[in-house]
Each structure stands twice: as C-alpha cells, then as structure tokens.
C-alpha cells in the first residue's frame, strides 16, 4: 500500500441553508478543499451521504456531483453507512490512492436535511436502525441512545449532570468555530432543563438537523512536495468495523464493540498507542455517545467517561481534548458530512490552523465516526509530517 497524505480541506458554514440545493452545498465545500490543496484537477471522488433519496428525492450523487464540480468524466462514487458515510468516503478514497488506482482523490460528505420537515427527517434518520424490529415498534434515534444512557447510568452510576457536561464543553468549543451551526454557549442547567426528547435525554443532549458539506483532498505521500500550502498530514491508521444493526442484539448496551474494534485496528496499523493521540473527534450524536465512545476507544476505563467529562479531562486544555470543533452537538450534524468534517478538524489542528480553539503541540489526531446506534464505525489516525 502506498502512503497517503491529506493536502487540502474545505467546509462551508453549516446550518439551515434554505437557499442552497444539495448540489451547490457539496460543490462549495469541494471547491474550498481544492483551493486549499492547490491541485488543478482531481482524478476521482468519493461522496458520503446517508440518504439523499429520502431527504431530497435524489440518488446518483456520483454523477450529479462530478457534473456540478466540473471535473469532466472522472470516476465518482457515493458511499453510505448511515451517519458514518463521511468516514466511509474518507476510507474509500484512502484505499483508492493507497492501491495505486488514482493519485489526486477527493473525499467529501454532504447532507441536505431541511428540505423535509421534522417528521420527514425523523423517518429518514430512523432508516439507520432496524426498520422491522426497532423502528416499527416506535424506536427513534434519541430513544435508542436513551436506552444506552439508562443502561450506563444503572451500571456505572453515570449522572444526568455528567451527560450535560459533554454538551456544555462541546458548545464551548463550538463557540470558537466560525463554521459551527450553533456557536452559542450553554450551561449544565440549560441542558438538563431543555425540552425532554427521550428520557433521560433532552433536546440539548441531541445533535441538530443540519445542511452542510465538507471535503478533503488526498494524494500519495511522495507527491506532497508539489503541494506545500500547509504542513502535510499523513493518514497512518484506518479501522472499520460493524456491529448488529439492532441495539438489542448486542450483549452489552454500555459499550460500542464496532468502535472498540475499529479503534484498535487503526492504532495497530498506525503503530501508535492511545497515549500518542493528542486530540480526538468523536461521534457525539448524543451526549451519552461521547461518553461511551471515549470509553470504548480506551481513553477512559468503562464507567469513567462521565466522571472524566465532569472533571474537564476532555476540554481543549484537558488530558485528551475531545471534539475541539464543537462536535456534532454544536457544529451541527449533516449526517453524511460529519465524518469528513472530523477529518477537517483533525487536519486543521495538526497544521496549527485552528485559531482560538488550537491545542498545543498537536502531532497525532484521531477521528471516530459512527453509524446508527453503533452498527458501523470508522476510526482514522493522522499525523503531521
């Protein structure tokens, strides 16, 4: 396998982008990534998108986006793994370059979620769960994560306040991210007293409905000499694993096996220990998710994710900064784009270009992107060179 580097990143301001179609949202982010990298063309493209079919009545994004990006007749593929479609696009582009098939490859992610109403969005998102044996019986995504939260609280004594601390920290970070959808700050009381969605999770435990896109440019590491706008960042580890689509089919609701396996694979491939990681973007679709993921990746012992969040260990100046970007919670969660936006953040931090939220001496960063209630996970590790 060839070594692969990320030489460009791009992302637009996320939010309710009423005046933009999905084709324009994607193209805008892709052009930013191309500009950032300095390439004059791309050889191939991967687009992560969860459900443009249900959200905007349009499939076949490979053809559509290659067309609107004006890059000629290049190979362009859409990949899907629910909310980790973006992470999957990144891995697909990585394998494409690593295999030697193409040199300059764009990995992007997009979701246009606000063309349908809240109920349409709930329906579309629920297709990431088991349609016949979860959704049919009334399960929603906040509901599934609430089931995990309850189990975690019962087993480890995780508190309502600890969950809220995750949201408070991520909104703090997001307030320093000019591209975040909700850059306001919040408080523990603000989270706990928000409208109840699925007990114990309130609206402020949940990531929002968002329109947005992000894109990055990959090339073989031995070609980076040509593109030196920024410090070069290498992809040193990639892990991908699945788990049962239904939460109830798993032995344990307080850990995430796909995340555990994907994390270990990525570390092994990278030849790194967890203590080498300087920052990590994780899939905080709900506050409880960040707590469970940080435990399943091994940053904290099982049951210690909540206390660690409360102690500030995951803040920008903490032991292991988690979601310096603001996470899905504050930055927004256009599902297909989220995994690429995580890479955007990790690369920006490793380059030292994260402005107000920059952490010190970031050399190695990790991104964990998750689909459904944890039925699929991608973990990537990047290092600045």
């Amino acid at each position: 396998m060839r070594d692969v580097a990320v030489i460009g990143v791009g992302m637009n301001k996320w939010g309710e982008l009423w005046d933009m179609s999905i084709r324009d949202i994607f193209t805008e982010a892709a052009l930013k990534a191309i500009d950032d990298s300095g390439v004059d063309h791309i050889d191939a493209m991967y687009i992560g998108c969860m459900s443009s079919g249900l959200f905007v009545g349009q499939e076949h994004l490979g053809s559509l986006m290659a067309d609107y990006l004006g890059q000629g007749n290049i190979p362009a593929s859409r990949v899907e793994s629910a909310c980790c479609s973006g992470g999957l696009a990144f891995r697909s582009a990585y394998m494409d370059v690593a295999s030697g098939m193409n040199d300059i490859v764009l990995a992007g992610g997009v979701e246009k979620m606000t063309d349908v109403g809240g109920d349409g969005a709930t329906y579309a998102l629920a297709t990431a769960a088991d349609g016949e044996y979860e959704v049919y019986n009334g399960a929603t995504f906040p509901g599934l994560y609430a089931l995990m939260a309850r189990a975690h609280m019962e087993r480890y004594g995780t508190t309502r306040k600890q969950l809220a601390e995750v949201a408070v920290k991520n909104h703090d970070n997001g307030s320093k991210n000019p591209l975040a959808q909700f850059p306001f700050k919040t408080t523990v009381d603000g989270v706990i007293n928000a409208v109840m969605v699925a007990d114990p999770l309130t609206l402020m435990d949940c990531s929002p409905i968002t329109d947005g896109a992000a894109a990055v440019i990959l090339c073989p590491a031995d070609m980076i000499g040509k593109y030196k706008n920024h410090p070069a960042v290498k992809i040193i580890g990639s892990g991908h694993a699945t788990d049962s689509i239904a939460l109830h089919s798993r032995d344990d609701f307080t850990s995430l096996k796909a995340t555990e396996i994907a994390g270990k694979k990525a570390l092994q491939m990278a030849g790194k220990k967890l203590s080498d990681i300087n920052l990590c973007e994780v899939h905080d679709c709900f506050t409880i998710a960040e707590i469970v993921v940080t435990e399943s990746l091994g940053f904290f012992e099982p049951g210690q994710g909540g206390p660690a969040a409360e102690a500030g260990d995951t803040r920008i100046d903490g032991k292991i900064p988690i979601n310096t970007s603001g996470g899905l919670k504050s930055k927004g969660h256009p599902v297909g784009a989220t995994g690429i936006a995580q890479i955007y953040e990790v690369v920006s931090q490793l380059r030292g270009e994260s402005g107000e939220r920059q952490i010190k001496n970031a050399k190695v960063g990790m991104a964990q992107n998750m689909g459904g209630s944890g039925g699929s996970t991608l973990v990537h590790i990047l290092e600045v060179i």
Partner: protein
Amino acid sequence: MFPSRYWREIPHRYRLEAGKCTGCGFVAFPRRLVCPQCGQREFETFKLKGEGELLTYTVIHVGPSAFVDDTPYALGIVKMDDGVNITAQISDIGLDNIEVGGRYKIEFRKIQSDGHSGIHAYGYKFIPIR
C-alpha cells in the same frame, strides 16, 4: 407502511415465531438463514414463551408521526427467558413505575395507525407481570 412487508413479518409479530439453530441452540428473532454463533444454516421453528426481564428503557416524548398520539410512551429492551432480546413499547404501567430488572410478558397489541386511511398495524408490547 409497506403492505407486503407487513404481511411477511406476521409470523414474528403475531405469533412470536423465532428460529432455533439445530447446531448450537442459538435463538434468532427474527429467523435467520445462517447462525451468527456457529455458522450452521438449519433452524427449527421455536415459539418464544414471551416472558423476561427489562434491561433498559426510555420514555419517548418526541415521537415519529405514526406514534404522535401515543407520546409520551415507554420503550424498552427485554431479555426473554428464551435467550433473545426484544425491543418494544412498555404498556399497562405508569411511566414512573417502570424499573430496570422488572418482569414483563409479551402481549399482542395495536402498534401504530398509518396515514390518512388509518389502517392499524399490530404487533407485540411488554406488559408488566405483577
């Protein structure tokens, strides 16, 4: 709702028919073509007894349109004594009285009403064993 899909799931939803692996005894609900535990592909029809223990639950306050008249409603995962976990709504109990570890049995109930025509869809719910 997709009519043929609904019809196809009736053995599971109405009659709690699972499959038991003839190789290792793994209980699959719904039935499967291959055992995830031992890889064998023969299953015998196995009717769940339909009783078990609540592992976790939530109360859903913001529900999908098909359930909007039912909110708030409780949803839980019960570990059946037969060795399989099931997700369903919890009924016939006050929302404040639900506790992890409680014993529940499965009953056949109306699950949702679909769209303008108001066709009812049926299936199983958890009812407390007192």
